[in-house]
């Protein structure tokens, strides 16, 4: 459809990229198909570039597909995250990544396609399909190392929980459709005015289903297992992109065009945020495996983002987006460092970080920066993120929530500092520096750059986020 070309440009381009990857992979002789990854990376770079060219405002298919500021913001975020994830995957050691590169990158791209569409879907059907398209590849990406029992087990758990929760989601969506009488999200928002209990039931069920995707507290339980078992670069990506998509869906379903009915969600969101923050932080304390620790801390961060949701205001949503970006850099960076250390030490235990500061100070400093950013310390991105969501919540009058959040930040710092202690205080067992694959180094550098730049000069990002949530309210 030519007239629809421009808004769908990114999606179509991605489709083409997928085809390219597919065929190149098909016709690549031998056991090593890494070139596919390179191709993917290049393609993503190009698309990322295009995503800055795309202009907002277009609607397609009777407004079921919108290319608004929010969608664009989200898409750029997805591209960035995926790009980093792909680049970081290139130097992966396991043979499967060489031989089965096609499947790997194809799956990533498929999921990415799902996210892209999801971020601009304004129709329940489209939303559900895109949601599934995003999820299904993740299931087997999680189990990509199919020789390792843990990986497969993690994949299976992920799959089971995922399907159940998507069933819950679909069930909720069915109610929404039934009461609203249309699959158009705006219709739903309009119908909520009547406040029909069944509609509310549907939206709560849907919230549960989405809660799984964003890993809010009671729905989070797949997270640590999956993170621990799956390959780290993928986890880094998994910990950011799908969650972001989930939040975009939440925006679309619960905030967009709701007017002052949004206030209805405050108790739910606040409750979710509280339990998520508390649960995530507390469960992170006793972890010995860095990836599990980051997983739980990630859950806690979702809680902080939910504070932004609980604020149900333009500021709240914007600060949530800001938080997402900060979290992207901080969390992915941390995971990449984990990958580096794991490659050299062969262990993901916290003890593997003993004396890292004396072995390779730069790497340790990067890790410290990421941890501090996650902990919310000034002059790195995470601080502003936390501060802004607090600020938004405070505006909504949720001072108690702010206090809970702030106090549990201290708990979070406890376990982050434990890692810092390993790196800086403990004495190293071996002296020689940790070898870093150049690509990984580059990705880590990107993340540090992001963390520090945002930390020092957050203004542009704030403005962008505020502009992105403009159409919602």
């Amino acid at each position: 459809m030519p007239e629809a070309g421009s808004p769908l440009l990114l999606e179509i381009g991605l489709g083409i990229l997928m085809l390219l990857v597919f065929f190149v992979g098909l016709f690549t002789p031998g056991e090593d198909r890494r070139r596919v990854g390179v191709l993917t990376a290049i393609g993503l770079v190009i698309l990322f570039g295009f995503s800055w060219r795309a202009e907002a405002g277009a609607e397609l298919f009777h407004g079921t597909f919108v290319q608004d500021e929010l969608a664009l913001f989200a898409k750029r975020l997805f591209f960035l995250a995926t790009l980093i994830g792909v680049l970081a995957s290139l130097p992966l050691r396991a043979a499967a990544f060489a031989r089965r590169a096609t499947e790997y990158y194809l799956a990533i791209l498929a999921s990415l396609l799902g996210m892209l569409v999801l971020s601009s879907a304004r129709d329940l059907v489209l939303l559900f399909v895109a949601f599934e398209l995003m999820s299904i590849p993740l299931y087997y990406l999680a189990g990509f190392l199919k020789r390792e029992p843990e990986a497969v087990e993690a994949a299976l758990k992920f799959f089971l929980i995922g399907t159940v929760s998507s069933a819950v989601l679909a069930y909720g969506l069915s109610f929404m459709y039934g009461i609203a009488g249309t699959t158009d999200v705006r219709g739903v928002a309009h119908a909520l005015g009547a406040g029909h209990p069944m509609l509310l039931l549907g939206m709560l069920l849907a919230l549960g289903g989405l809660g799984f995707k964003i890993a809010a507290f009671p729905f989070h339980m797949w997270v640590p297992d999956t993170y621990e078992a799956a390959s780290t670069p993928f986890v880094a990506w998994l910990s950011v992109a799908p969650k972001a998509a989930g939040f975009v869906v939440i925006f679309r379903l619960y905030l967009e065009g709701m007017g002052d009915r949004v206030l209805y969600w405050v108790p739910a969101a606040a409750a979710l945020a509280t339990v998520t923050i508390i649960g995530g932080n507390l469960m992170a304390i006793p972890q010995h495996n860095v990836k599990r620790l980051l997983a739980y801390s990630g859950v806690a961060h979702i809680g902080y983002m939910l504070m932004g949701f609980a604020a149900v205001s333009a500021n709240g949503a914007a600060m949530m987006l800001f938080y997402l970006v900060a979290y992207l850099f901080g969390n992915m960076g941390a995971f990449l460092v984990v990958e580096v250390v794991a490659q050299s030490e062969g262990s993901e235990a916290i003890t593997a970080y003993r004396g890292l500061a004396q072995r390779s100070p730069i790497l340790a400093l990067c890790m410290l920066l990421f941890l501090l950013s996650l902990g919310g310390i000034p002059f790195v991105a995470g601080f502003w993120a936390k501060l802004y969501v607090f600020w938004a919540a405070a505006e909504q009058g949720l001072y108690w929530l702010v206090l809970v959040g702030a106090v549990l930040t201290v708990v979070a710092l406890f376990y982050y500092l434990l890692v810092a202690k390993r790196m800086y205080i403990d004495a190293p067992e071996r002296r020689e520096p940790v070898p870093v694959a150049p690509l990984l180094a580059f990705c880590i550098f990107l993340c540090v750059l992001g963390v520090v730049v945002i930390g020092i000069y957050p203004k542009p990002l704030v403005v962008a986020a505020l502009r992105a949530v403009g159409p919602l309210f």
Partner: protein
Amino acid sequence: MAPVSALSLSSFPVLSVITWSPFVGALLIMFLARRSALLVRWLAVVATAVPLVLSIAIYVAYDREAAGFQFFEDVPLVPALGINYQLGVDGLSLLMVLLTSIIIFAGAWASWTVKVRSQEFYALLLLLVTGVYGVFVSLDLFVLFLFYEIAVLPMYLLIGIWGSTGEVRPQGVFGWAFGRTGVGTKEYAAMKLTLYLLFGSAFILVGILALYVAGDSSSFSFLEMELTQFDPKLQSWVFLAFYVGFGILAGIWPLHTWSPDGHASAPTAVSMLHAGVLMKLGAYGVVRLGMGLLPDGTLQWSWLVGTIACVNIVYGALSAMAQTDLKYVIAYSSVSHMGVVMLGAATLTEVGLNGSVYQMFAHGIMTGLFFALVGLVYEKAHSREIFRMGGFARSMPGIATAFTIAGLSSLGLPATAGFVAELLTFLGAWQSSHAWWLFPAVIGAYLTAIYVLRVTKQIFWGPPSTDPHFQNLPDARGPEWAALWILVAVIVLFGIWPSLALGPVDTATMPLLNRLWVLQ
């Protein structure tokens, strides 16, 4: 000459230079002085000397007639949220800046003997100092909070890496908890201190946000908030938030327990800086933000502040008396003296508040000197067990003399800075609406006399210890003297010439009090 130099100073951003030069020093140390320990030290000395000189300069140049905030700097940071990089000093912060620069300059000399990873040590130390300066000079609550966090965090590594593990405490009522948390180790102390203070900062943040949201002018600027009248109920709980938040750093009872462990485990310079300056930072916060912005809240809660301060004074002194580890004695004495600071502030009288500020300064210098000396003694004798040492005055007369002077200042002996502070505080206490505060305060001073002289007699001015490995210990030498004599000189100077400090301070405290008295 004052106005002239004021002009010449106001032409360039002196406060920024003071604040950031240690930071620059830290960067230089990290990147330039790769493996030359000596270069590191000299860089540190220079990076701390520049602020010292400048702060003395602005101290002289400060126009007391004009009063108010001077050397003003204002750069918009995040206009969208009304966050500005806004600096300025009045008499109060002026004195604090001076204190900081003196202490850290002495600290740079005192930690001359740090051998292990000295590069990182000095870098972190200087970073910390930047944070401290920043808190004192920034007029934008938000920026203030940023600096506050910077001032707290490096402490973790500083204590964790270079600290010393004290005696692990025996089982008690909550023995299991002590085992679980690893009480006594330096890691424990570092973690406890850092988390405790960050816990406090949580309250501060909430308070600041509350004011920001409540204030009609959507700005974090202190000056604009000062003009807004906040609703008394809000003021009430925000003041409590500030009191708890900053009070933790000021070591108010019963939230003080981080300080003995932390200060005892910290390396010399860090103890000096932390006990000498950071605790004042807490008191400063209570006075500047709490009393400055929330007159109603202050009037509602001054009774609590003062009463707890009295508890601090007596309780701190008694616990200090109970210690057997020299560093713990000093740490607890800080708890006791911070009580005097808070008491003076709580009296809401001119003399009382001046005394409080003066005590901030006096105690800063004095406790800095104390920790420097303890560090020296520990370095020479490798012991902190008071009752194992003895008669050191013979082998290290210099250290003994300095220690005695510090002790006399801490027990408020005239001709030392401590006396002026305590006299003023006492006068204020008796004038305040809770006259009985005077008695715990004076009794605390007397208890101080008891434990300080007890320790001094035991370690220095007493029969020599029979322990063989205390034979022929060296006295302080070289750079260490610098640290000692700078501080001793300041103590005596401000002891015999109080108007030196009280002049500017008064210009800062009176407006603040006038705002309060209007409401009374």
